C-alpha cells in the first residue's frame, strides 16, 4: 500500500466521521459532498476510474441537489403549518 492510498483511506474515515457527527441536515448535505469527493479520490487511487466517475457524479451533484431541494420542501411545509396554526388562533 502506498502512502497516497493510506492518506486517502484516512481522509475517507475522517470525512465519514464528519458526516455522522454533523447534526444539522444542511451541514450533513455539505459534508456528504466532501465525503463523496474523498471516496472518488479513493476509487481513483485504487485504480477504479469507472467507479470514481460514477461516484463523483452521484455524490457531489446528484445526491446533494436532491437532499437540498427536499430539505427546502420540508421547511416550507413546516413554515406553512406554523403559519396556518397562528392564523387559526
Amino acid at each position: 500500500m502506498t502512502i497516497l492510498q493510506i492518506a486517502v483511506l484516512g481522509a475517507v474515515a475522517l470525512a465519514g466521521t464528519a458526516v455522522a457527527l454533523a447534526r444539522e441536515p444542511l451541514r450533513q448535505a455539505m459534508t456528504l459532498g466532501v465525503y463523496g469527493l474523498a471516496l472518488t479520490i479513493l476509487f481513483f487511487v485504487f485504480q477504479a476510474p469507472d467507479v470514481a466517475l460514477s461516484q463523483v457524479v452521484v455524490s457531489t451533484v446528484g445526491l446533494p441537489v436532491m437532499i437540498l431541494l427536499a430539505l427546502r420542501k420540508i421547511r416550507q411545509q413546516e413554515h406553512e403549518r406554523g403559519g396556518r396554526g397562528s392564523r387559526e388562533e
Partner: protein
Amino acid sequence: MSRRGRLGLFAVAGVGAAAVLVVGLAGLPAFGDYHAAYGLIVNGVGLSERHATDLVTAVNFDYRAFDTLGEEFLLFGSAVGVAVLLRPTRGERQPPRAAAADERRFAGASPALRALSIGLISPLIVLGAYIVTHGQLTPGGGFQGGVILATAPLMAFLAGRVLAFKMIATEHLVEAGEAFGAAGYALIGLGGLVFSGVFFHNFLPMGLAGHLLSGGTMPLSSIAVGLEVAGAFLLVWTELLDQAMLHGPGRSSGGGS
C-alpha cells in the same frame, strides 16, 4: 430499561461484535491479492473478443448487459415513482406572472456564481457527450455521462434562472428522454434476440479496437443508457424543484388571503 442496563447490554454486544470483526479481518486475503477468475478472464479476452479497451463497459453493456437492463429499469422505476408521488400535490398550473415573481424572489445567486454556472453549461454538455460516446474506449459510459449531461441544465438553475431551467428541461423533453433511453436499451437487447437468437447478444460488427465505433452494440447501449439516466435525474430534479421553488408558502398563502 435503565441507562445502566442499556450500557451493560451495549458493552457485551460491542465486545462480541469486535471479536467477530477481528476474526473476520484476520482471515482477509493480503492487500491487492486478487483471485477472482471472472475478472482475469474478461481482462484476457475482452479486447480480442469485443474490441473494447474499457472492459468495465464491456462487462456492463455486453457480457452482463442483462444486469444493466435490470439496473436501468430500477432507475426508471424510481424516477417515475418520485414523479408520481410529487405530482398529485401540484394542483393547477402555475400562472406565468406568479412564476416570474418566484424567479425574482429566487434571484439570490451572486454574479460570480452566475458567470461560473453559465460558463460551465457548454463544457458540461461536451464532457457528458464525450463520456457517453467513449464508454467502450475510456473509463465512463452511459451512466456517468448521463448524469453529467443532466447537470448542464441544472447550471441554469444554479445561476438563479429557475424558469430558464424549466424551459430547457421541459417535462415532455425529460420524460421523452427517459422513456426513449429505457426503451432503446431494451430494443438493443431484442435486436440480439432477433439477429442472433440470444437476448443482448452483440449483433453489430465489432469495428477496430480504439475507434469510436467499436465494440458492436456498446456505443448504442451507452447512448441509450445516457439518455435514460439524464432523463431520470432531470425528472427527479424538476419535480423536486417544482415542489421546492414554484410552490412556495409565499405564493399559496398570498393567493388564499
